């Protein structure tokens, strides 16, 4: 039935000129043609389409058959493919590029990952051919196409392990490879334009903005937009494997090709990577700077260059390591501000790679006047204390220590003060105090004396350490890390620094420390101990009574209510707290022993 109608309308139109086809003619052709294809009559449709007499009709209306054709081709049922493929190819050669483009782009939109990957694999090459037919008008169409393609790529699941990349179950790797093949001719054209533009410049003395290359600029802009987008997704999400881990990696190739694309369109990788610090002039064009070079994309680029060493051969080896650090700090700040595991990991990697190039003790204190040198550690603290992934927390701490090691003594001094003031976390503060102890220990060694960790300069810092945040009411359990490290430091000082030498000034300070730190701490320990002993007593009494305790509140995770803490666990916790107070007290007593009688020398 449909086939007859199709033949009829085609025959009727053969006699007409193509501007007299009616809307009804179009509709009948479309509907019937599609039906024929879907019902399996594609051989007949093929012969209609190939018929010389029908070429005008095919040119005007043929593209309407695309949806059905592509559906068939995607289903990959062998019996139907061959004629459909032939129809498809003929249409691509015959129909108008603009209309083909619309038809093809529509078919890119699929829902499930398998079909998405298949449709991209099927359609990228035809799309490329169609776009190349658009001549100098191709730029905006290319842009539209790339945008749609990347929207589809974003729906594909990403491989997380090396094995997953090798298996490529969801075809992301194949898609990326197809994508690179797709953009190749356009990149080549942009590269040629750049070369020719350069020549024109020389011969006519025109400025870059005056080149007859508005269309060429559009092409470059679309390719730039595309590259920047891919840097964010999928590249920033993916874990690239280095050659010794995975010799052949389509994803690593993809990343490398994106960098090559940037170079081909005239972007300088150093300028992009160092952009946060360089003052870039406003580039003329129809995109704002921020939009043109999204910060996240630049951070991703920096990671590819400095961590994976992609395009290393073309990146100049003349920039100072401190300058690279300064620029990368901005990227690191951005990455560590996010919560996604992929971004945090890359932020830490980039930070680490930048620090490792520097010698210990080489960074001067004036770097701390740069905002990112303060905000990055703040982000690190967040990672160390709040990131759900244990590995990232551990790595964050490792990187923090690495960054401390690179500062010179004055910078360390100022950094420690800053961290004590701003980290608001007992564990971090304890860690910083441990570092202070190490620095004092260094300074006290013969020949290594410095003005910051001994003598009068040290006292302001010590005063910030040897203090109880809330006086005697300080919650000792909450602040345990900090309190213990402070006590350890004090004990260390009174042992290591002879009262007769007093290199650190601690002995002259002791009477004050007694008032501001030791006395309130003793009071606090006693109060806390009394409180917890009472709690323990009550809990044991209640347990003896064997009555079910009514808790004041309950905690639910998901939909499950957590069981109440058993009496046994409660008692364990209380014992643990009491043990902690004993620990604090033992150090207090020891300090007292060590300082008794020596204060009055």
């Amino acid at each position, binding site marked *: 039935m449909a086939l007859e109608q199709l033949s009829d309308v085609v025959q009727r139109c053969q006699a007409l000129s193509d501007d007299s086809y009616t809307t009804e003619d179009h509709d009948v052709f479309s509907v019937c043609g599609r039906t024929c294809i879907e019902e399996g009559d594609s051989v007949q449709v093929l012969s209609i389409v190939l018929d010389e007499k029908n070429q005008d009709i095919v040119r005007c209306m043929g593209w309407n058959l695309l949806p059905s054709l592509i559906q068939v081709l995607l289903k990959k049922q062998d019996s139907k493919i061959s004629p459909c493929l032939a129809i498809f190819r003929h249409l691509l050669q015959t129909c108008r590029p603009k209309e083909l483009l619309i038809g093809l782009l529509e078919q890119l939109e699929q829902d499930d990952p398998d079909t998405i990957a298949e449709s991209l694999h099927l359609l990228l090459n035809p799309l490329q051919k169609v776009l190349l037919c658009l001549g100098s008008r191709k730029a905006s169409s290319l842009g539209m196409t790339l945008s749609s393609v990347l929207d589809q790529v974003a729906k594909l699941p990403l491989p997380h392990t090396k094995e997953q990349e090798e298996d490529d179950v969801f075809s992301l790797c194949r898609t990326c490879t197809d994508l690179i093949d797709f953009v190749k001719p356009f990149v080549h054209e942009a590269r040629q334009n750049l070369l020719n533009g350069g020549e024109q410049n020389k011969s006519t003395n025109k400025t870059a903005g005056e080149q007859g290359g508005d269309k060429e600029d559009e092409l470059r802009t679309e390719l730039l937009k595309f590259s920047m987008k891919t840097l964010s997704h999928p590249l920033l999400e993916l874990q690239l494997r280095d050659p010794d881990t995975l010799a052949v990696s389509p994803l690593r190739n993809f990343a490398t090709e994106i960098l090559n694309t940037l170079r081909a369109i005239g972007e300088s990788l150093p300028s992009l990577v160092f952009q946060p610090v360089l003052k870039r002039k406003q580039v003329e064009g129809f995109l704002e700077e921020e939009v043109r070079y999204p910060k996240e994309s630049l951070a991703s680029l920096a990671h590819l260059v400095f961590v994976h*060493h992609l395009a290393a051969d073309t990146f100049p*080896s*003349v920039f*100072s390591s401190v*300058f690279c650090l300064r620029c990368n700090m901005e990227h690191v700040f951005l990455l560590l501000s996010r919560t996604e595991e992929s971004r945090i990991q890359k932020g830490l990697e980039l930070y680490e790679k930048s620090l490792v190039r520097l010698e210990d003790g080489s960074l001067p204190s004036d770097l701390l006047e740069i905002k990112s040198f303060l905000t990055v550690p703040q982000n690190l603290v967040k990672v160390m204390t709040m990131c759900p992934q244990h590995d990232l927390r551990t790595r964050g701490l490792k990187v923090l220590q690495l960054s401390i090691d690179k500062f010179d003594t004055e910078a360390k001094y100022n950094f420690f003060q800053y961290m004590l003031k701003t980290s608001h976390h007992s564990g971090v503060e304890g860690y910083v105090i441990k570092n202070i102890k190490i620095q004092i220990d260094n300074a006290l060694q013969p020949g290594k004396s410095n003005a910051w960790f001994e003598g009068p300069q040290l006292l302001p810092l010590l005063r910030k350490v040897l203090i109880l945040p809330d006086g005697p009411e300080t919650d000792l359990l909450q602040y345990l890390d900090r309190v213990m490290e402070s006590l350890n430091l004090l004990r260390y000082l009174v042992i290591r620094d002879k009262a007769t030498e007093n290199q650190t000034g601690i002995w002259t300070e002791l009477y004050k420390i007694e008032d501001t730190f030791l006395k309130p701490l003793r009071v606090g320990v006693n109060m806390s101990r009394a409180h917890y002993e009472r709690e323990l007593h009550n809990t044991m009494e209640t347990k003896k009574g064997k009555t079910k305790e009514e808790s004041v509140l309950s905690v639910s995770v998901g939909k499950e209510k957590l069981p109440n803490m058993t009496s046994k666990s409660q008692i364990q916790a209380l014992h643990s707290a009491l043990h902690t107070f004993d620990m604090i007290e033992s150090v207090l007593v020891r300090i007292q022993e060590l300082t008794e009688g020596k204060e009055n020398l």
Partner: protein
Amino acid sequence: LKMADEPTREWSDEQLKSDDLPKKDIIKFIQDNAAHSFLNEQKLLGNIKNVAKTAKKEQLIIAYNQLFESKRFKGTEPIEEVTEQVRTVKIEEKAKDVEVVDEGPPKYFKSVLKKGDKSNFPKKGDNVSCWYTGSLEDGTVFDTNIPTTARKKKQTKPLTFKVGLGRVIRGWDEAILTMSKGETARVEIEPEWAYGRKGLPDSKIPPNAKLIFEVELVAVD
């Protein structure tokens, strides 16, 4: 709370007035033993030589005597004293750093291969553009921006950056400031002014590498 035993008078009045006792000895004694605020009031802070230039012997004798009368020795003053010291230490430390930086010979050596125009020398902060090739002492070329073919030369641009701001290795910053537009030079840079003890990890530049560059300065701002 006393820090140390009180200091004793080292000189009698006669000894003080005598020409045999140089000013700087008195100044040193007072600096070693007096509280910071006392020194400040008496204008006896700072480098002994400088103080000796400005202070008269009579003033010093008076100060010396006043010190023992008022007993304003080190360790007798409250917190402010320490803070003052802290401030003073900070300033001195900075000054010392600046001196250290100027000392020592330059850690690079430049030989001119082709003379420049000898009039356009870059200043700190100027944009400069260079073609360059970098090699190690053993001749390995680790980096160059000079394209191999004529065709590629059209699309390659020279390296452009702001000179003298620490954006490049120190050897480059220093050497280029001595070059004029059009000059080509061979610059040998000691590791301290290149990539030092660390080198460039994961690259051809090993630790403690001396780098040899051939640089052509093509443009200045």
